[in-house]
C-alpha cells in the first residue's frame, strides 16, 4: 500500500529534524572530546572516550553504508586532533559493525516506527546499559590494543580498557539522564 501524502510529509520532516540533531551532536561531542576529555586522565589508567556516543545514538533506520561512512568521518576527525591517523577510525568502524549486529539481535524490525533512536529514554535503562557496555568495551578493546600494538604489556592494556570503559559508560549514562524524556516510552 503506498503511503499517503500526509505520512510522507511527516516522515520527511522527522528526517530533516534528525539530521540537524545528529549534526549538532557530532560537533558538540567532538568539541567535548578534544578540548575537555582529552585532558582528563585518572592515574594514567582511565581516559574517557565519550565521542562514540554519536555512533551509539544514530537512528535505527540509518542505512549501513551511511553508518560506516559517518563512523569513519568521526574517527578521522578525532584522529586529526589526536595526531593518530587511522587509529580512532579503525576502532569506530569495528564499533559500527558491532552496533549493527547488536541491534539486529535485540530489536524487532517492525518496531522502528515508534522507536526512532536507541536513546536511554526510548529504550529503557536495562537495554541501554547492556548496549553501551558491550559497544564501549569492544571499541576500547580495539583502540587500546591498536595503540599499544604489542602483547608485552597486556595486563596494563587490559586494566586501561576496563577502567576507561567504566568511565565512558558512566558519562554516557549521565548524558542519557540529562536528556531524559519521560513521555516517549510506551
Amino acid at each position, binding site marked *: 500500500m503506498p503511503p499517503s501524502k500526509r505520512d510522507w510529509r511527516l516522515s520527511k520532516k522527522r528526517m530533516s529534524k534528525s539530521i540537524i540533531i545528529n549534526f549538532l551532536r557530532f560537533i558538540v561531542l567532538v568539541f567535548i572530546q578534544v578540548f575537555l576529555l582529552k585532558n582528563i586522565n585518572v592515574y594514567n589508567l582511565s581516559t574517557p572516550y565519550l565521542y562514540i556516543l554519536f555512533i551509539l545514538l544514530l537512528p535505527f533506520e540509518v542505512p549501513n553504508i551511511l553508518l560506516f561512512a559517518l563512523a569513519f568521518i568521526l574517527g578521522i576527525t578525532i584522529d586529526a586532533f589526536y595526531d593518530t591517523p*587511522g587509529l580512532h577510525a*579503525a576502532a569506530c*568502524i569495528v564499533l559500527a559493525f558491532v552496533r549493527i549486529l547488536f541491534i539486529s539481535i535485540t530489536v524487532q524490525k517492525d518496531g522502528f516506527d515508534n522507536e526512532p533512536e536507541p536513546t536511554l529514554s526510548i529504550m529503557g535503562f536495562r537495554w541501554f546499559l547492556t548496549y553501551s557496555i558491550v559497544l564501549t568495551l569492544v571499541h576500547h578493546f580495539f583502540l587500546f590494543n591498536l595503540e599499544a600494538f604489542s602483547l608485552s604489556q597486556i595486563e596494563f592494556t587490559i586494566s586501561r580498557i576496563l577502567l576507561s570503559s567504566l568511565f565512558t559508560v558512566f558519562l554516557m549514562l549521565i548524558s542519557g539522564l540529562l536528556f531524559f524524556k519521560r513521555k516517549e516510552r510506551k
Partner: protein
Amino acid sequence: MRNLLIFITKYNAFFLFIIFEVSALLIYIKYNSFQKASFINSSNEVTGNLYVRISEFKSYLSLKDNNDSLARENARLRNQLKSSLYADTLNKHKVTDTVYKQQYEYIVARVINNSTNRANNYLTINRGSKQGVSIGMGVISNSGLVGKVVLVSDHFSVIQSLLHKASQFSAMLANNKEIGSMQWGDNLDPHMGLLKDVSNNAVPKVGEKVVTSGYSLFPVGIPIGTISSLKTKGGGVSLNMDVALAVDFTKLQYVYVIVNKFAAEQTGLEAQQKKDE
C-alpha cells in the same frame, strides 16, 4: 552471478565492514611512522589555529605558575652576572682575545598542544620554519630536556617529547661523566624516565643528577633528572636506573628550541667520514 549479488546485498554490513576497516587500518599502518602524516595532524593549519585559540584561553589559568618559574629563572640568570660575583683573585689579567662565536641560539616558543597520557606523546608549538625551526632540532624548557622537532610547517612545529617509545637521548651522570642513553620508562608514567646502558665502572648513587652529554642535539649539561632508584634488571655489562624527570611534562607552557649553528658542518664532516670507510 545473480546468487552472488543476492548474497552480497544480504550480508552488506559485513562486506562494508571489511572495506572500511581495511582502509582505516591501511591509513593507520601507513602513517604510523609519524613523519609521513603531513595532512592529518596538528601542524595542519586548521586544527593548529583552533589549538592556538584554546591555548590562549588556557594560558590565563596558569599565569601564576608561569610567573613563578620565570622569576626563578631570572634569579638564576642574575646569579650568573659578573656584577653579582665576588672577584677573589687579583691577578686576573688573562686576556681572552679569542672572539667567542655563538654556537647555540635559543628560540622561545609557546606550547599550544600537549599530551602526556598516551604511549607516544607529542607537543605542538607556535613557531615554525618561518621563525627558523627545522626538523631534528633539540627542545628544552627552563627546567630541562623536552624532546626534538619532528615536523615543521610555516608557523607550527611538532615535537616528539621524551615521553615517546622511540625517543632516545644521549645522557651522562653529572658527577663521574659516565655516558648512558635516556629513554622513557615502561609504565607510561610522565614523571619517570629510564637511563640505560651505563657502563659497569660507574658507581651511581640515588639522588645523583643526570644531564645531557653534548654528543647529540643539546649543549652539554642540560638537566634531565635525578636518579631515583637503581635497577639491576639490565644485568650483565651495563646498569639501568630509574630517573625522576626534571621537567613536569603535564605543565609545559614555554619551551626553547635550540639552534646549533655548527650542526650542518658537523654532520657534513661525519657523513664524509662514513663515506670514506
